[in-house]
């Protein structure tokens, strides 16, 4: 593994100061970063360890929302009593991802910052616009069955965003709090991850040197039911082929409000606004669910090996809604 300078920050201020130097990267759980440094895909000159800056608290706010410190581990977040009770979709999504050991290390901000699983990106040899802008995308003409997207792709990159946690957060609604050389600011969670477009090397809205300090979840939707359904090649420890995070509010057998986000199919955690809109005021039945599912995948672009993801993601929506609303009305 390449060598680098290492600093352990004792405070956010120290971290930000060290983080301003050229090619510095913040080290949290390390489950993505050290993996990719070993592969030499990520090439930091300096690592700034932020594990002891004190951003590891989970705080419930007066309005029922939750402020999650950047360093709260995936395990802690998934098992927190209030999260389990008020945001079941988030707890389920976290527990559907990775493994016990990885969740024990992986942090909230690190999960948001994780990189794509495209094998051409990871192999450090193949042309890859994300790794080497302008070199081309090997996945479009190559193998793209499992970890590539059908929504939000471009001719330069089709890698899917691999997170489960982020899909739940996209459905719940969240705000990313960051600090940087120019002070503090907030970014809407749905604006944080970027579609590849013409610049697949740009994956998120952070400016150089900026550090995620907290993520705040929107207050839970009143009287709602929520759940995460992940479909994959094996039952555990596998990335989603398609997944859905759904929050639904019912009055009798009618849906009064809903939130839908998709995983495994988008180049970013994919919120399906139109599909949600189609559910509002409608009876909770299969016809309603199928129409929403169709709308959610309306703009999808199938590639040679992953066209199956379109019906699969639709089914992930329909089945999740069926389960949440208690079966077919």
């Amino acid at each position, binding site marked *: 593994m390449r060598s680098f*300078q290492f600093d352990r920050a004792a405070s956010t201020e120290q971290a930000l100061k060290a983080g301003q130097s050229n090619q510095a990267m913040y080290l949290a759980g390390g489950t993505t970063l050290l993996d990719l*440094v070993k592969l030499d895909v990520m090439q930091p000159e300096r690592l700034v*360890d932020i594990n002891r800056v004190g951003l590891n608290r989970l705080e419930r706010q007066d309005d029922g929302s939750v402020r999650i410190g950047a360093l709260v581990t995936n395990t802690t977040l998934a098992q927190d009593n209030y999260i389990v009770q008020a945001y079941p979709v988030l707890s389920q999504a976290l527990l559907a991802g990775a493994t*016990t*050991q990885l969740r*024990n290390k992986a942090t909230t901000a690190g999960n948001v910052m994780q990189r794509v699983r495209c094998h051409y990106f990871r192999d450090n040899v193949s042309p890859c616009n994300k790794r080497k802008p302008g070199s081309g995308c090997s996945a479009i003409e190559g193998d793209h069955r499992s970890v590539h997207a059908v929504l939000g792709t471009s001719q330069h990159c089709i890698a899917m965003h691999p997170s489960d946690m982020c899909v739940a957060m996209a459905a719940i609604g969240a705000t990313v709090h960051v600090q940087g050389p120019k002070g503090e600011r907030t970014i809407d969670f749905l604006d944080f991850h970027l579609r590849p477009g013409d610049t697949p090397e740009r994956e998120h809205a952070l400016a150089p040197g900026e550090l995620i300090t907290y993520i705040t979840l929107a207050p839970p939707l009143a009287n709602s039911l929520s759940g995460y359904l992940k479909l994959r090649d094996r039952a555990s420890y596998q990335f989603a082929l398609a997944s859905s995070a759904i929050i639904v509010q019912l009055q009798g057998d009618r849906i009064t409000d809903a939130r839908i986000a998709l995983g495994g199919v988008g180049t970013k955690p994919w919120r399906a606004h139109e599909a949600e809109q189609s559910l509002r005021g409608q009876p909770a039945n299969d016809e309603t669910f199928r129409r929403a599912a169709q709308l959610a995948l309306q703009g999808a672009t199938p590639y040679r090996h992953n066209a199956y993801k379109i019906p699969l993601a639709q089914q992930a929506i329909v089945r999740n809604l069926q389960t949440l609303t208690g079966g077919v009305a």
Partner: protein
Amino acid sequence: MSDSISPNRRSFLKSVGVSSLAVASAPVWVQAIQAAPVDDTQQSLQPGEQRITLKVNGQAHTLNVPANAILLDVLRDRLQLTGTKKGCDHGQCGACTLHVNGTAVNSCLSLAVSHDGDEITTIEGLEKDGKLHPVQEAFWEHDAYQCGYCTSGQIMSAVAILNDPSIGSDDSSVREAMSGNICRCGAYKNILAAIQSARGKVKGAS
């Protein structure tokens, strides 16, 4: 399987071990492996190195390590604690699982310098007073391995799972919680049986 009724390979080895080495304080296979304390304080730090203290299986070590040294490699190469295995080296197989401050993590994705001051437990630290940990004993009894390479990681995960009240005690919860430990030989059935049989013998396990 009880020793007296139907001796198998493991119990045979075990009984031979005990009888032939009766003069020793403990059978060979449960002889405590403790890393000799390392103290690099007198060594000057080389460029790029940092001085850290690791408390491994109760023993403090002061080490000068390069910033890019991986915890797994430091334990194996500097402390000769080779019970923790390097499998994939990318957090995918679980062979390198150990406990940091009581929590199971992949040591291949951990920088040693990040763990200055931490308490680390490896497979070598599970035995107490010459007696195997109940989970080690259960793996032995259930023949929960073939080649054995993944075994220390499996056991470290199993111990953490049995001590974690948030993980269900049914088979499917255990399988799910253990899915980060890959066994290329496919000894999963016996691994599961071993873990379930150790339940109740582990302090704090539900």
